[in-house]
């Protein structure tokens, strides 16, 4: 019996076939509840994965190809040292652009920690020069040696040193998200297989009667497959809908500027959770189909 034919029968439906298995309220409620819980968790796993994805992109692309030169010196010497550093950087191969951060830039950088209206003159702040690398990149070690020789107190801060582990962490977080989604799928399959097996065992007499009257394995299996697929679809749809409401009411990333507040969907991503109930229903269909045909072989 082919998979496409089984799918066609599932979609077409057969009320008579649906009725031959006696209703079991308790099992039905448990299956719907478990599917709802997994649908709920799957939406959050998806949101986490997408957030990690965005974070990895942001850390990967946003900070790629940038470095900073930090100059620690008395305020009186700072303009001269900055000018020397800028001229060195402008003549360094592989440097695309350089920009010395002014007082307003530094104010903006410190504002999240110290608040607005900070008087920068009261703080011994280093001079900062932002470097944008050309695609070819520059010789960081050679540049550092030149800066040390000509600009005392200058340190080349290569972002790659601290960006790489952050990007790796974000990528791992993304993998955890996908792994969680996979685990949820496998758990859904296991749950449906167990529930279907229990239902098939409890209805062994029904199966014997159906065989007695000339029912084929496909007819008998469909009665179980449709039932479990629809229950899981219903439960997962409800769970996913509730999870989407929860995700929607989470504070937006812009308000909190933190990773956790960034968990959610953006734009067309809001359509993705709709796939979860369909995927779970597909898992339930395949799991019940497998369990039903195995049980029918055993009962034979």
């Amino acid at each position, binding site marked *: 019996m082919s998979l496409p034919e089984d799918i066609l029968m599932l979609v077409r439906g057969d009320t*008579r076939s649906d009725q*031959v298995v006696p209703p079991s309220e308790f099992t039905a409620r448990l299956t719907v509840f478990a599917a709802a819980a997994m649908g709920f968790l799957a939406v959050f796993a998806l949101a986490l994965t997408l957030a990690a994805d965005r974070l990895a992109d942001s850390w990967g692309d946003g900070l790629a190809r940038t470095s900073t030169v930090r100059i620690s010196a008395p305020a009186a010497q700072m303009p001269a040292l900055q000018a020397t550093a800028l001229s060195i950087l402008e003549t360094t191969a592989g440097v695309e652009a350089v920009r010395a951060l002014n007082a307003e830039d530094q104010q903006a950088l410190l504002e999240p920690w110290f608040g607005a209206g900070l008087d920068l003159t009261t703080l011994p702040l280093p001079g900062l020069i932002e470097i944008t690398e050309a695609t070819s990149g520059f010789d960081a070690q050679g540049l550092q040696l030149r800066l040390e020789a000509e600009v005392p107190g200058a340190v080349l801060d290569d972002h790659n040193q601290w960006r790489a582990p952050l990007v790796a962490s974000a990528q791992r977080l993304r993998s955890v998200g996908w792994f969680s989604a996979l685990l949820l799928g496998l758990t859904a399959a296991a749950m449906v297989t167990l529930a279907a097996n229990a239902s098939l065992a409890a209805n062994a007499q029904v199966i014997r009667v159906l065989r007695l009257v*000339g029912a084929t394995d496909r007819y008998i299996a469909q009665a179980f497959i449709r039932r479990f697929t629809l229950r899981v679809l219903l439960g997962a749809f409800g769970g996913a809908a509730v999870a989407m409401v929860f995700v929607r009411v989470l504070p937006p990333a812009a308000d909190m500027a933190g990773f956790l507040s960034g968990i959610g969907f953006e734009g067309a991503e809001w359509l993705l959770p709709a796939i979860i109930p369909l995927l779970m229903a597909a898992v339930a269909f395949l799991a019940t189909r497998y369990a039903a045909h195995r049980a029918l072989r055993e009962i034979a």
Partner: protein
Amino acid sequence: MIELENVAYSYGGGALLSDVSVSLGAGSFHFLTGPSGAGKTTLLKLCYGALTPASGRVTAFGEDMSSLERDGIALLRRRIGVVHQDCQFLDHLNVSENILLPLAAAGRQTSDAAEDLQELMAWVGLGHREGALPPELSGGERQRAALARAVIMSPDVVLADEPTGNVDWEMSQRLLHLLVELNRMGKTVLIATHDLSLIRAAKAQVQARVLRIANGQLQLAGADL
């Protein structure tokens, strides 16, 4: 129609049937008798493919049952109506739905069979019990409902396993009469029973062969009753 050739069947390590050969021809009427546990039900199950013989061959409508897959046997069963002693209903469905079950399983529209169902229910005397659930029926009503379900597909063969086992004499006569009527319509009928009075009562109504199972062997107990 159905033929058993040198069939043997073992159960629990012992031979229940050995070297059994019998042929159920079109339109014939057979009784299968013997003591309890002799293998009457087993022989019936071999006839409709619910059991597979240890050796020998069972042929139904020209097809060797051992060569058929489960679905092949299911299709074959649509031509064989079976009445069990315990009836085997789906208790959550009402009498009508149980009787229509073979049609539904065959993928036929049960709504098209409404008229046939009415006639059938009237024929077995259950016209007033359509909506009742099986547990609400008396023993005789259950047997008649089982007979109605067995013939709804208009099968060529009707196999009945102790159909009068749980009913009084009057009801057993009524059931026998229905089975004889089916035979007059051209159906092959095989009744497994240990009730010899039923066989004697059939004498006046139909020409039947009586087969007796004893010690795993099938013997002709009396021809042309």
